[in-house]
């Protein structure tokens, strides 16, 4: 798994430094992964013809926007192929925008974080979480720190109380792995936000959090472990000054969420076709492996709404739900 992530993110990281490189790299990926598959599939299906226009999908912007554009561009192409519909990926700039878009029906299917998924399900009755990556049932966050902070790794949740008096940045305000669960475990250790040095930052994304800690802008950061591992493997960011302090206990996180009216609006069987596509992705098929790589996963597996009850409870406990 580590190796596959390495491949995907080394491209990813290149992409973020210069768009010129990004074009070259994505060109390679297209060649390698999608083959001849970039022709527009609009209206190709026929049997599921509907007049609702293209199927709109999106994702929370948890990483560099340019990475996501490429990732979901490829995903949209595969969705289109599977459903016979035209599929549009709408990039957004902040987490709540995905929830809003999902709520108003501008997005039919979205890749949500744990908390954003709970928010969306709360606002759209009958929304269903239908797929997650194999890593999402036991997802973890890392607390990372710059060496200059003088902090050293610890194994126990209670160790988080040592962060008192240090500056800390979260990711997005409504991030599960970059804010909700880290704050929850800090709470468990008796560490309040007010014990930190200054106000906590909200970097907006995991990449931004890693950068903030690597550059010393913040002493400690709470970050999604999968993104951090991918960054380490990519070797594009200088992490020589960064230490991993603590890995949180596992929790359920990211998932694909569908509006209840997907089949009604976009044709019967649309959701099943998407599920078949995701669950059928095979790491030994190069095209499929490319998608899985982009997600940092080995496979997609079914999930259900009740898996996120824990997230909802934690969010309620921390007063982070409406």
């Amino acid at each position, binding site marked *: 798994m580590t190796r596959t992530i390495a491949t995907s993110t080394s491209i990813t990281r290149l992409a973020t430094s210069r*768009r010129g490189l990004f074009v070259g790299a994505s060109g390679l990926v297209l060649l390698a992964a999608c083959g001849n598959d970039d022709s527009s599939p609009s209206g190709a299906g026929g049997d599921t013809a509907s007049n609702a226009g293209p199927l709109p999908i999106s994702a929370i912007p948890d990483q560099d926007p340019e990475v996501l554009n490429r990732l979901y561009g490829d995903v949209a192409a595969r969705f289109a192929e599977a459903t016979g519909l035209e599929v549009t990926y709408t990039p957004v700039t*902040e987490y*709540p925008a995905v929830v809003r*878009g999902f709520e108003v029906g501008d997005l039919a299917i979205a890749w949500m974080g744990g908390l954003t998924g709970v928010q969306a399900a709360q606002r759209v009755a009958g929304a269903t979480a239908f797929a997650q990556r194999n890593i999402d049932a036991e997802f973890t966050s890392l607390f990372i720190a710059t060496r200059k902070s003088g902090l050293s790794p610890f194994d126990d949740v209670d160790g988080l109380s040592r962060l008192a008096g240090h500056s800390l940045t979260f990711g997005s305000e409504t991030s599960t792995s970059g804010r909700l669960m880290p704050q929850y475990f800090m709470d468990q250790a008796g560490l309040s936000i007010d014990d930190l*040095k*200054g106000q906590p*930052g909200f970097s907006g994304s995991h990449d931004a959090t890693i950068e903030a800690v690597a550059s010393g*802008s913040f002493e400690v950061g709470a970050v999604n472990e999968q993104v951090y591992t991918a960054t380490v493997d990519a070797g594009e960011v200088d992490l020589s000054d960064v230490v991993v302090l603590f890995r949180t206990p596992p929790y359920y996180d990211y998932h694909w969420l569908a509006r209840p009216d997907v089949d009604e609006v976009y044709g019967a069987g649309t959701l099943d076709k998407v599920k078949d596509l995701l669950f059928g992705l095979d790491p030994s098929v190069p095209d499929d492996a490319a998608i899985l790589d982009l997600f940092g996963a080995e496979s997609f597996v079914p999930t259900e709404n009740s898996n996120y009850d824990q997230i909802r409870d934690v969010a309620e406990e921390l*007063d982070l739900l409406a």
Partner: protein
Amino acid sequence: MTDLVEVARHDRDPTAGPDRAGRPPSSCRVTGRQVALRRGAGALIVLLPLTWALQRALPQGGDIVNRGGVPLIGDLLGKAWSPRLDGEFLEVVVDAAVTTLAFAALGTAGALVIGLLGGLVLSDVAWARRPPWPVRTVRTGLRGALVAIRSIHELVWALLLVSVLGLDPLVAVLAIALPFGAQTAQVFGDTFDALPTRALRALRDAGAPAAPAVAFALLPPAGPLMLSYAFYRFECAVRSTVLLGAVGVGGLGQELVVSLSSRNWDEVWTLVAAVIVLSAVVDAWSGRLRTDMAVASCSEWSAGDAGGAAGTGGRRPGSRWARWSAIAAAPGLVVAWFASGVSLSGLTSERTRMLAGRLLDDLVPPALPRGGAGEVTAAVLDTLAMAVLAMAIAVLITLVVSPWAVAVRRGTGPPGGLAMRSLRWISWLVARIVLLVLRSVPPTVWAVIALLALFPGVLPGALALGVYTGGVLGRLVAESWESVSPAPREALVRTGVPGAVATVAAVVPASAQQLVTFTLYRFEICVRETAVVGIVGAAGLGRLLAENLNFFRFPVVMTLLIASFAVSVASEVASRRLRRAIRA
């Protein structure tokens, strides 16, 4: 509320204030002691809020400067020298610039429609006699509604509209058209009332129906003024549209947000340069229009003096520049309409009706945030402190830069040779460019930079807002200084007073008064604009608003909107009272 607008109206119209006309020239009566008292009071009015704001921004024992982030600022500023200029990215930039222009143009057009209709209802002159009571009731309600609409910042409008319309380009257009329209209605109403009414009365007395009479007698003389105001609004709309990018409605602003969140500073600087160029072109165009028509300078608009200028309006209605601008407006709007892909269908759709109903349901009854009333109070105080500090920074920038940005009058330039004069000209150009850059870089970008070196709080917000407002205030003040009469100083110089002393005696007081007037005026706006830096993570009501919107706590959002309204109205009343006191 009506009272407030009345205050505003008197304040607006320097010729109409009865107190002004009725009082003997004040210089006869003022004693030295009164002057000293007034100066003392003035100093207190400046120093007390400033001290309080500083105390609030620099909490005891709290950490403010984030040393870790300082080196990053050097890095990112360094990138300004190597912006991204490859063809592919430039294409993105040009596309985005077109979108921004289109949104701004359509938003301005919407604002003008609202402003024209609202202005006619609000103006006394459009109604032949004392309007009948239903009209008066509607007018009172409308005034209140207009004040409420413009007390909400464009960006907040956009955030609310997104919940109803989704990611529709209409969000951008409406978010500009609504608050700008409310402002425009106010200005147009005052403009109409300041016009000579003889023609209109003659038509009405001869039995002409109201609508044609207004169309023939009122609109033509107001035309040049309205055209020039339209372009002034367009200038503002371009900058506001860039801000709206934070909501994701497209254009340069959205590209800027994408590049900012990728920390691709080379792209950020290219986009910022595009915003600067766009602002410069639109500013120059609209400035040319105003000079040509000799109606009102930007600074007069801002201080609400345009009504006074109306009497002299249209001195040169034959300006070719103005005529072409007016002629280009209509096809320009059509192009903008198609380029932006705006459609009104979103307004009438079933979904919009449902979502609007739901949003209203969600918003009422208002509720307090988790932190209770204390949290709202703290946010209100933070907002005020931020605005006060921002103004202090803006005034500082103005004092340093604006004296250089005043255009040299022909024939009154400093004595000396060609070298001296070209030096003066170069310093003028540099100062103007500095001010342009300060006000064209969106405050959100300044805030992101400030948040690298400072912990989230009042200070980074004040800094970002102050730098931006410095660019706006500096230009307004420089323009108004250009109109300070050189005659008193020259008279003094001719009687043998040394140049420097003459300047201090004759130019400084007038200039200082203008600086104070504009500072107070911008303070009102600054209070509203704290929402912008709040949304990117600084502090105050904007911060609380963004947080609660992120968590979909609409009843709390409603409370915060009411609080913003109250703060905005209160600061407006206070600032107008002070301005009136100064003028009297």
